[in-house]
């Protein structure tokens, strides 16, 4: 029995899905005991709520695997929501332009992050924190509150469903599958792991490591941009605090690490991250159903993240010795 548990935990991706199933089962039982029910609708609701965080976390996975990280995603999300909503200005005919502009802004921010980290040799923590502060300054200067207007057509992205499945969830799945494919099946993906695993080994093998890190950051920011578009469609407008209110910066990093990706890079993947995001969302859902106060909720989330990483660390520690 213990052997099986150990084998299960030995692979973080499997471990996080096992924890997810266990949480679902326990949550179901607790909610039932409490006199409520946990329905398919609740599960769909979980998808709906996790989609934005999920998309950001998938991008964050790329940055972290490459041995970097991105603290600027939350402010970028706010910025993108405003850029998109203002460009659309309530007109359906502007949707395409707005999406292109929003994603262009995202890519540019990612490029800046990547270039500052690789060419100016600033640690990713400080580089992306600096970029985050710059974006905050711009937002604070230009906006006091929500601005722009998103046409009803674009709001379909946030609210409509295909059958029982929310469009937002499909978007998340598409992004996750896309990045998974990139990591598993392309040269670029292989090199992301190599650079995150050991920059020097990658460099001596002829990998242009700077380009890999920059590309990872551009993709990470693009994911944040997609999340910004999704949130704008939900709100019907852009908002300067939508990213920071959601805590997308630290929470996306937490989800990635919970999913078994090493914070130092080079090990992990998208599948774990998706599991990590879902686990956090299911915990949220169960607590909501049980009407637990939000203070206790945060305590549990914090404990779960720390315990998970401690378990993974034990495993790697044993391997190394």
């Amino acid at each position, binding site marked *: 029995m213990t052997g099986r548990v150990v084998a299960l935990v030995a692979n973080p991706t499997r471990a996080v899905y096992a924890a997810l199933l266990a949480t679902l089962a326990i949550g179901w039982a607790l909610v039932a005991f409490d006199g409520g029910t946990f329905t398919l609708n609740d599960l769909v609701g979980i998808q709906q709520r996790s989609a934005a965080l999920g998309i950001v976390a998938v991008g964050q996975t790329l940055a972290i695997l490459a041995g970097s990280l991105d603290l600027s995603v939350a402010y970028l999300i706010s910025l993108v929501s405003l850029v998109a909503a203002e460009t659309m200005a309530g007109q359906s005919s502007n949707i395409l332009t707005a999406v292109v502009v929003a994603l262009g802004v995202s890519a540019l921010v990612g490029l800046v992050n990547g270039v500052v980290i690789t060419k100016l040799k600033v640690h990713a923590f400080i580089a992306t924190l600096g970029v985050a502060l710059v974006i905050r300054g711009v937002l604070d200067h230009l906006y006091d509150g929500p601005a722009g207007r998103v046409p009803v057509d674009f709001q379909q992205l946030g609210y409509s469903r295909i059958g029982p499945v929310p469009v937002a969830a499909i978007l998340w799945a598409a992004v996750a599958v896309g990045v998974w494919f990139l990591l598993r099946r392309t*040269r670029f993906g292989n090199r992301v792991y190599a650079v995150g695993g050991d920059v020097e080994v990658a460099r001596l093998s002829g990998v242009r490591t700077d380009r890999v890190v920059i590309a990872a950051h551009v993709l990470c920011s693009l994911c944040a941009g997609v999340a910004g578009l999704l949130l704008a469609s939900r709100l019907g407008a852009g908002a300067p605090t939508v990213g920071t209110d959601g805590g997308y910066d630290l929470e996306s990093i937490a989800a990635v690490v919970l999913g078994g990706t090493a914070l130092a890079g080079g090990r992990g993947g998208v599948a774990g991250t998706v599991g990590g995001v879902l686990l956090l969302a299911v915990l949220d859902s169960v607590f909501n159903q049980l009407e637990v106060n939000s203070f206790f909720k945060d305590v549990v989330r914090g404990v779960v993240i720390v315990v998970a990483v401690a378990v993974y660390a034990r495993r790697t520690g044993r391997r190394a010795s």
Partner: protein
Amino acid sequence: MEDINQKPAESAQVILRMTGIGKSFLGIRVLRGIDLSATAGEVHAVVGENGAGKSTLMKILAGVHQPDEGTVEIGGTTRAFAHPVEAQRAGVAIIYQEFNLLPERSVADNVFLGREPTRRGLLDRAAMDAATSRLLDELDEHSFGPRDLVKDLSVAQQQVVEIVKALSVDARIVVMDEPTAALAEHEVDLLYRLIRRLQARGIAVLYISHRLREVFDLADRVTVLKDGAHVATVAAGDVTVAELVKMMVGRELDAYFPPRAAEPAAGEVRLTLAQAGNAKLDGIDLELRAGEIVGVAGLQGSGRSSLAKAIFGAEPFTRGEMTPVRPASVREGVAAGIGLVTEDRKAEGLALNQPVRDNALLVARAIGHRSRAAVSDLLRRVQLSPPREETEVKYLSGGNQQKVVLAKWLTVAPRVLLFDEPTRGVDVGAKAAIHDLMRELADSGTAILVISSELPELIGMSDRIVVLRDGRVAGHLPAGATEEAVMALAAADEAAA
């Protein structure tokens, strides 16, 4: 020297020709006028003491360093590599002691890193696996496959991965830097077989090693370097072990060393080891007495540093006796009056961003030692010049940094002081000051153990010498033993005996 197939070097195709290579770092000449050539299918050993210039020469070949003088010709074309990748593309593969592998990735991923084959834009894993399998088959290696993760492989298997990597880039010259340092005895035989296969493919193998037995087992020719200069290139069959050792070490003892104690080993016993061992050491018997300096000699990987760390409590002994106490941790070691001047002072000996004063008080504060000798007195005693207490240690020269490390230990007046490479990277003046201080400490009753790769220093300083080999005591030598005697015990073996 059993079955060496002496190959006539003239008839074979010359793949590598390095001519008149010279190199200086920061104005210090580390290589001058070195010639080295290699022919297809030849194993050419490069030998010399630590600091002879072997590694620098190989790094020039690998494109890590650029030579100040001389030329590198590969396959008849003169090449100047600006980057290791250029050397790799020209057919030079280097297998360093520290492998260049990604532990979290598969064997095939590692072999093809930077050159991944693609099919319609996508990674062609099938082709990577197939090519890796084929090379593994050719090397008769069936204990692991292309999809295994490198971290799950043994050191010997990882070495095979490095060799497969070299074969996959069609390397014509393979450099192996101390390839047996981390291998167990039976794995060495497997490595020999691999090297024979490389030879059979017409690859020139440059074999860097201290271990003369391996040199005689494998090499067709041997090039001896000493102090950055070319001593000789000889056919392995034309030279004896004794002659080779003489070429490697034969030099005048020109350095000044402080005089030894009049009556060596007269003091009380400070520390005794009986059959002590741990993961890296086995069956160590040793006695340290007040007032004597005991030198520890041995090749890299022989367990020299492990011995110091075990006595100190950093990597404790798990077997055997150590009296008066066998420390299980560094705190216990320090409490028992044992100090360790570590090999890597920047990483392990000093807090570089802190001023001299705080560094000097590091140990005293850590163990809550009350009698704080005035730091200024200590700094005068270790001859720190200028004795400024507020300077951050990172701004000091190597010699001055080492003096601060010494001051750190003097605050607690250790009964036993262990020195691991005390003068590495230290200029001549500071070296003499450190030597004087070591002798002064011994004379005032401290038992001293010193590890040094520099044989003249070890011989000049020690009252007696313990030679380690493969984690065991290979023998004891009295004061003033010759370098040849030390090398013979350290380097080997039946061949040298």
